[in-house]
Structures are given as C-alpha cells and as structure tokens.
C-alpha cells in the first residue's frame, strides 16, 4: 500500500474506531467481542483500502464488513454457552448492560440478529433507510419491514420485562 493510502487508513481508523465499536456493542452486547469485531473489520478494510476509497466514502462499507464479521462470529459454535449439565442452549450470554439505557440494551439482545441490525443502524446509528439497505445489501422496503418487526419485538420484550419487574 502507498504511504498516502496507509496514512489515510490510519486517520480513518482513529476517527471511526469508537463509533464502530459502539455499533458493534449494540449488535453483540459485549464490549470485549465488540473490540475484537472492530479490529477484525479494520484489518479486512486495510487489505482493500486503496480499492474502496476510489469508489467514494467508506463508512457504509465498513459497517457492512462489521456486520458480516458479527454474523459470522455469532454462528461459530464456541460462541454458544457451555454448561455443565450437558444441555447446550442456543443463545449467547449477554454481558450485563451498563449506563442509563441498560434495560433497553438488555432487551435489544433479545431481538433476532437481522432485525437487530436494522434497528441498530436505522435508529441507534440514525442512518437513512437507503444507507441501511446498502449496508444490509437489501431493498429499502426490506429495511423498513425488518426495522418495524425489530421494534415490535423490542417493545414486546420491554413490556415483558416491565411485567416481570412489577411482580
């Protein structure tokens, strides 16, 4: 890679690392994993940096790579919980959420991956539907329906947790 490209990449990495980690955390609910995902994403971006920068802004491409890394990671067998009773559950253990939005973040972890991705990008990252569609590589209509279903799921989980805490 040329020195100018390398410098440009480093500037991008420094400027976007926190934002990418935040998105990754909202997707996976685990700060350690979020940092792993961002590092893998940056390494993958570095390989193709000169090519993708010629095509224009790279933010959505970076989100696309991050999303793929997360989906790949969540399918790996060792991400499933290990138990000593021999029962293999199918959901990872989310890290305890902190901050004033804790209950919302815990509820977000219950939303299925594709819907969660649409919700995180559309609302938490505040991207227009067209950009989310570019990241998710689908139509704007699909983004709208996935986001709407994600919100519905989220609302249901929040209502359930409110009922539980009211007990």
């Amino acid at each position, binding site marked *: 890679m040329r020195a100018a490209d390398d410098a440009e990449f480093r500037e991008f990495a420094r400027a976007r690392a926190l934002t990418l980690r935040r998105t990754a955390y909202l997707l996976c609910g685990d700060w350690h994993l979020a*940092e792993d995902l961002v*590092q893998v994403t940056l390494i993958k971006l*570095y390989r193709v940096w000169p090519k993708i920068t010629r095509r224009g802004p790279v933010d959505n491409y970076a989100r696309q790579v991050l999303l793929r890394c997360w989906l790949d990671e969540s399918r790996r067998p060792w991400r499933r919980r290990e138990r000593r009773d021999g029962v293999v559950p199918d959901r990872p253990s989310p890290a305890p959420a902190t*901050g004033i939005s*804790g209950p919302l*973040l815990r509820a977000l972890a219950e939303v299925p991956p594709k819907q969660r991705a649409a919700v995180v990008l559309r609302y*938490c990252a*505040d991207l227009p539907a067209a950009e989310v569609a570019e990241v998710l590589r689908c139509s704007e209509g699909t983004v709208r329906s996935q986001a709407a279903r994600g919100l519905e799921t989220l609302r249901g989980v929040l209502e359930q947790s409110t009922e539980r805490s009211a007990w």
Partner: protein
Amino acid sequence: MTGLETRLRDVDLAEPPLGFDPDEVADRAARRGRRRSASVVFAAVAALAALLVVPAREPVALVPSLAEQARIRVALTEAVTRALPGVRDLTLSAAGTGPARMSVTAEFADADGRPGDFRLTVRGAGAAREVVPADGLCTWTDQVPHCVRLPQPGGGVLVLSELVYKDVNGNLVPEGVNGFLYRPDGSTVILTGGLRHPLTEEQVTKVITDPALALP
C-alpha cells in the same frame, strides 16, 4: 416518531476507554499484507527451486489452545469454590478468546441461593497492550466512587474499584467490585462484577490472585 425510536436514538452507553490502539491494528494489518506478499514470492521461488523451506516468522501471541482454556476453566471453578464457600450451580460460559487472551462468564448461586455473575478475562504478556494501564485505572471515569491500588508480594499491583451506573430514574446504583491484577511479567487478570449479587472485595481478590489463572 414513537417513544421507543427516540429512546433508541438517544441510547446512552457507559463506554469504557478503547481497549486497542487503531495504529497498532494498522501495523498488524500491514505486517499481514507484507507476509502474504512474501508468501506468494516464496511459493514461486520454492516451486522453481523445488526446495522445502520454512519461512521465518516473527513471534506472535497465540489464541489459547483448547487444553489451556479447559485448564483455566478448571482453575476458575476451584478459585470460585474457595472464594464463595457453599457456591452452587456454577456455570461457566465462553465469552471470547483472542491472541493470549480468554474471557469467561461465571453464573452461580451463593450459599443462600442468591444468583450472581461476573466476567473474568485472563491475558498473557502478549496481550498487555489491550489493557488500560494500572496508573490511569482509578481516574478514567467519574463513576468510580471507590478505587484502591494494592501492591502485591513479589511485584505487580492489584486494583479494586467499585463502579456505579445510573438507572432509568437517574439513581446511582452500585455495580459491584471490579478487580484488575497486573503481574510483573505483563500478564493480567480482570474480573468485572455482574449486576446480580456482586462479589465482595475479599472474594474478588481471592479469585483473581489465584496463580493458576494465568496465560503465557
């Protein structure tokens, strides 16, 4: 726009400081790129010369082997059993591995049946750069009401800190004691308390100072 959409747009995270250096990641990516290019050249030369040559490789931190991970889990089980007499239903969940690093989430019920959980991350010296230096640990956020640095026999330092977070009503809720053990060889052990039944300082200390909880 619904209230839920607004809450998602305004989502507030207690973000820890970035645990890696973006420039270091770029260096790593560049090294990998050079290594890949070198491998292509090497393969061509090797084919021409019909010689089997092992290319020189710089030392890299390896992801702990499955055996090593199993050893850490056994050590953690024993350490928790010693620190919390009467503990039951202890469940360990893999929470991520990386070069010279592994994380485990532990869930349990204490002797009185109260559920609790915490996360433990063990790092070898090769992953030392991922960890916030001990010096700045007590000051990286204003949400640390209590933080002590305890020099350890034989070198190293143990930092115990208690974090708080704001609940939906703005009340400060204690989040439990977190422990950070920095060994003289650069290896570290970090225990972050869960929201349920946090461990005491004594229990955290007993768990993370266990010498078996270490990676090369």
